């Protein structure tokens, strides 16, 4: 009820009796059902608390659990994907790549798996980092064909897996095979292969050393050898840096990057999707 019934002089209407700094509120009564709706919402809220989990020790009559809903929806999605996964399992890599539907599925799935497992070293989108090959360029250590990539992912590089890709460059400096000035000359020759430095007496001297020590794996023109994972030296792509100091360091200490055998952690279909995804990053042969 109004606290004090007064009539407003101007409008002739009754006021609620409320006054703020001389401003009085006209009484425009609300319908009672409107107020009752407010009580209904409170009753509703109590009901809500009873049937749904609301407090740490209240699980609710419905037994609803958001975690269970998540699990159910994940199961549902797994079910929706099952058909595609089955087709990926039976198809070979070239077939996956040729089928627009499977390619799309493999690229979408591969992107997720890559982000979860590969991106920490190889970077988002396969951008790579020093010591971790860029997977988007057209230079490959162990081959960029679908089968090559598949094998690399399955068995890894320089790990305990029996099928692991493995090779080891001699440590020319550390093990005293070459002297420091010889390594410098050799480095000069290696850099001249891609035209990074011009020919000089040093590169000529380096060429002799190169022919003696390096040619077997890296090839006469520095074209590399993917059978052995021996990098191509006559291009503009340098895994450990293309300046003289980095090349000297590589010759002196040798390099031996390693990668796990993903077969131990990922299933066959996932590795296939990952293969197709990496192949599609831009460098696939």
């Amino acid at each position, binding site marked *: *009820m*109004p606290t004090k*019934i007064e*009539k407003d002089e101007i409008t*002739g209407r*009754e006021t*609620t009796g409320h006054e703020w700094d001389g401003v009085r509120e006209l*009484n425009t*009564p*609300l*319908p*009672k*059902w*409107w*107020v009752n709706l407010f009580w209904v919402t409170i009753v509703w809220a109590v009901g809500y608390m009873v049937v749904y989990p609301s407090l740490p020790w209240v699980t609710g009559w419905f037994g609803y659990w958001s975690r269970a809903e998540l699990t159910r929806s994940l199961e549902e999605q797994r079910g929706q994907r099952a058909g595609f996964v089955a087709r990926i399992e039976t198809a070979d890599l070239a077939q996956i*790549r040729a089928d*627009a539907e499977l*390619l*799309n599925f493999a*690229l979408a799935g591969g992107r997720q798996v890559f982000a979860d497992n590969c991106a920490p070293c190889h*970077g*988002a*989108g*396969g*951008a*790579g980092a020093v010591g971790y090959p*860029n997977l*988007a*360029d*057209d*230079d490959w250590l162990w081959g960029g064909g679908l089968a090559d990539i598949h094998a690399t992912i399955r068995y890894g590089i320089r790990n305990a897996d029996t099928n692991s890709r493995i090779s080891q460059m001699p440590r020319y400096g550390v093990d005293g095979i070459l002297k420091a000035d010889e390594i410098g000359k050799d480095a000069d020759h290696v850099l001249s292969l891609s035209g990074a430095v011009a020919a000089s007496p040093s590169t000529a001297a380096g060429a002799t050393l190169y022919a003696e020590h390096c040619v077997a794996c890296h090839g006469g023109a520095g074209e590399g050898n993917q059978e052995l994972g021996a990098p*191509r030296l006559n*291009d*503009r*792509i340098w895994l450990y840096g293309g300046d003289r100091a980095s090349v000297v360091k590589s010759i002196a200490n040798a390099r031996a990057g390693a990668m796990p055998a993903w077969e131990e952690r990922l299933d066959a279909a996932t590795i296939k999707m990952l293969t197709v995804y990496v192949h*599609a990053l*831009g*460098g*696939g*042969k």
Partner: protein
Amino acid sequence: MTRPAPMPSGEAGDAVRSVRDQRAELPLYVNRIKVYPRKVAGAFRRIKWIVLALCLGLYYVVPWLRWDRGPGAPDQAVLLDLPGRRGYFLWIEIWPQEVYFITGLLILGAIGLFFVTAYFGRLWCGYACPQTVWTDLFMLVERWIEGDRNARIKLDKAPWGLAKAARKVAKHAAWVVIAAATGGAWVFYFADAPTTLVEIFSGSASVAIYVFVGMFTAATYTFAGWAREQVCTYMCPWPRFQAAMFDEHSFIVSYRRWRGEPRGKHKAGSSWDGRGDCVDCGGCVAVCPTGIDIRDGQQLECIGCGLCIDACDEVMDKVGRQRGLIAFDTLAAQQAAISGQPYRHPWIRPRPMIYLAIMVVVAAVMVTALALRGDTELHVLRDRAPLFVTLSDGSIRNGYTIKILNKARADRDYTLTVDGLAGAALTVVGAATHAPAARVSLVARPDSVATYRVYVAAPKAAQDSVAITFRLSGAARGAAASQASSFVSPKR
């Protein structure tokens, strides 16, 4: 406060009193005072019936109109296909990103409302608002079943019995049927009407359909049957800010106080000297759907329907006075009439003209946008990781995700080229050939978005970022689009 003492109206032996008048004491919350509008005939009532027939007719019939769009496309003239993400309006088909056309329509609707209100007050409220239209329809049904005002008052006061129960049940049943038809018609705008109708009755429609039919049935029944004028008074924001839309030149339902007062009963044959034309018959109050007394002046509750004008004109004819004691009139015209000055209504006023200008601009923008839109769109998203890739020959490659929106209902072959980059070579992921080329062919399926990964390689440029343009062209008319992007190289 002086208020005329209630007088017997001679209708039911009770005074005809407005809702405000019936609230003797004013607590903060009150029970609703039921309004029993009386039947009335006249020009405004006729217009109201015509508008009602047009609005409801359009609403119920439009989903059933067919429009042939060829195989595979829905043949409903007006359809909002939410799962399919398409809107169909006769020959126009819009995609989700073109929802601004609907925004444009809403802006036109809002400004149109302001425009009409500036001239004629709350015509929308009184004639075209769904709340008014359905309430009117429900009242018509109520009148058929329970009788006119006095019969209804009597029925409500009567003790419960078989006859009363039968009438009440019949009325509510009729209301629910109308409400269900309304809810049904609503879902037909979102799903194919003939199929959905069969599905609803065979029990095979989706849960969403039943939920929405149920929701709209409940809302129509509650709002038009029970809540009625309370929706306008308590819920709707429009009455609250309409005052800003009126001015002294707006035609508003007005009681011409200067002509009507002092009011009082009039015996046939007695003189009209020294008194007003209002015979205080209460007709204007009895017919009012919101239960107000228009003689109290401008009120928030008045929806501007003009039924009180019809009621008053009827009485004025009977007592032999001039019509128009209550009329659509402007404050300025009334002031002029009181002071006896000549008055000419200013039709051209700045505010409505500004509204009109806005409407013209919005309509022009919409029509232009509609006329210029092609049926192909090209979206290009450049890779952020990696920003660029250095290839073994020292050239630079950037990756792009290309989306082609083919709005035509036919397969389309397109050619994609890049402008503004010397020696650009394109490769498409998944294409049969791996050889980079200056132009590549892409295919888009009918009425869908085709997504491609495209690599662009070029010799290293002097700048680290080059502005380029992707151009898409096809053989069909209107099958061309372009999109600006950039090509990024390392700084050193």
